[in-house]
């Protein structure tokens, strides 16, 4: 036994080598298939932290390339987003899908100029007759009604904003009871308007939605206009004086949709025949 120890002690270098090499070989044979699962899980926290530090340091050298790629990504995403936004504006949830509905065509446009602080507010769009814009088309966006086109040039068009007292009433109705009236801006605030011509025997509640009716032929039926905030009976008349809070935020207008009723001419002609008789 003692001689064995002496032998081991004398040859400890060889023995230690064989031991360590055996450990290594056992690890090679046993662990390499499962290395990532069960080897050094705790100590890989250390190596992981070091690698993460290094990569955060390494990131600085690729900042330029990363930025360029991000910018390109952003551009393509923004393009997609814009497409989707326009698509969403084309198909608001409130629009009915019936066979009898007039065929409306929508053209996207960007608001170039817009005012909210005057009594007669106008809106200018970046599309004109070349893009098929004509007078008497409606302007809407995803939030609600914006205005009506009045003048068209080759590439631009201007229209009356809903916030314009010359806009002689948009045909509007209360969704709860389908009574329709005329919506006129009160000239006081950029997000309130008056709903006229609703008879006082009608049930009206604060919070009722007001949407476009099908009477005008300018807007599709059911485009959001706003919500009733207040109502009272005008003295000496049979009509309510209803205050409507507009759903469109005219301060932040950016992209709008121009609505064309392709049957508008036919409608007008028919109605003129009635007048002639």
């Amino acid at each position, binding site marked *: 036994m003692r001689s064995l120890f002496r032998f081991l002690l004398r040859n*400890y*270098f*060889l023995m*230690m*080598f064989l031991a*360590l*090499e055996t*450990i*290594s*070989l*056992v*690890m*090679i044979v046993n*662990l*390499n298939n499962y*290395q*990532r699962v069960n*080897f*050094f899980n705790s*100590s*890989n926290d*250390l*190596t992981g932290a*070091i*690698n993460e530090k*290094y990569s955060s340091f390494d990131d600085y050298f690729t900042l330029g390339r990363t930025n360029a790629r991000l910018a390109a990504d952003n551009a393509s995403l923004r393009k997609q987003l814009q497409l989707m936004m326009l698509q969403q504006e084309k198909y608001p949830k409130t629009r009915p899908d019936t066979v009898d509905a007039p065929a409306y065509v929508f053209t996207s446009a960007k608001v170039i100029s817009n005012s909210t602080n005057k009594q007669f507010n106008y809106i200018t769009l970046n599309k004109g007759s070349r893009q098929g814009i004509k007078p008497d088309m409606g302007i809407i966006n995803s939030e609600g009604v914006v205005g009506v086109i009045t003048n068209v040039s080759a590439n631009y068009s201007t229209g009356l904003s809903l916030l314009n007292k010359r806009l002689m009433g948009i045909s509007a109705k209360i969704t709860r009871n389908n009574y329709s009236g005329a919506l006129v801006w009160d000239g006081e605030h950029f997000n309130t308007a008056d709903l006229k011509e609703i008879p006082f025997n009608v049930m009206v509640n604060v919070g009722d939605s007001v949407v476009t009716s099908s009477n005008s032929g300018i807007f599709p039926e059911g485009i959001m206009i706003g919500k009733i905030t207040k109502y009272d009976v005008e003295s000496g008349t049979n009509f309510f004086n209803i205050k409507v809070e507009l759903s469109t935020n005219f301060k932040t207008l950016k992209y709008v949709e121009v609505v064309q009723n392709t049957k508008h001419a036919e409608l007008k002609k028919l109605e003129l025949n009635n007048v002639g008789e």
Partner: protein
Amino acid sequence: MIKDFGKYIIMFVVLVLVQVLILNNIQFSGFINPYVYILFILLLPFTIPGYLLLGLSFILGLSIDMFNNTPGIHAGATVLLGFMRPGIARLVSSREIIEKGNTPNMTQLGFASFLKYVVISVLVHHLFLFYAEAFSFRDFFETFLRFILSSIFSIVIILASQFIVFKN
């Protein structure tokens, strides 16, 4: 001695980090993969006790294994190198230099002896490493090519580092 101890700890850390963060990312055409961290074993003093030499070799290999997720492969190679190192040292240099307790660097050994020392050490280490990594002799010649090319690259880098870093 304590000063040397600190020096070797720093060298250990620096070499492991250089290996895993920089050199492991260099893989020319999938063949050349230099392993320079063994410089730590090569530069340990001649008179280092055997258990320390083997123990440090094992720890060094294991450290690299931890980063590479290759349990045992580098440890086996470094332990083999640690075991062979006294023999290689005796082969390339004279008894006087070894017994003086010097570190086996280029100024002590001279360029020719140091070159021999490095070449033999790298070949021993890499031979074990690449075949343990492949773990079969099926692609024997492909593994051999990787072994040779990587060895050349490792030797060049080790010698260059001696000229640049440890010149004085």
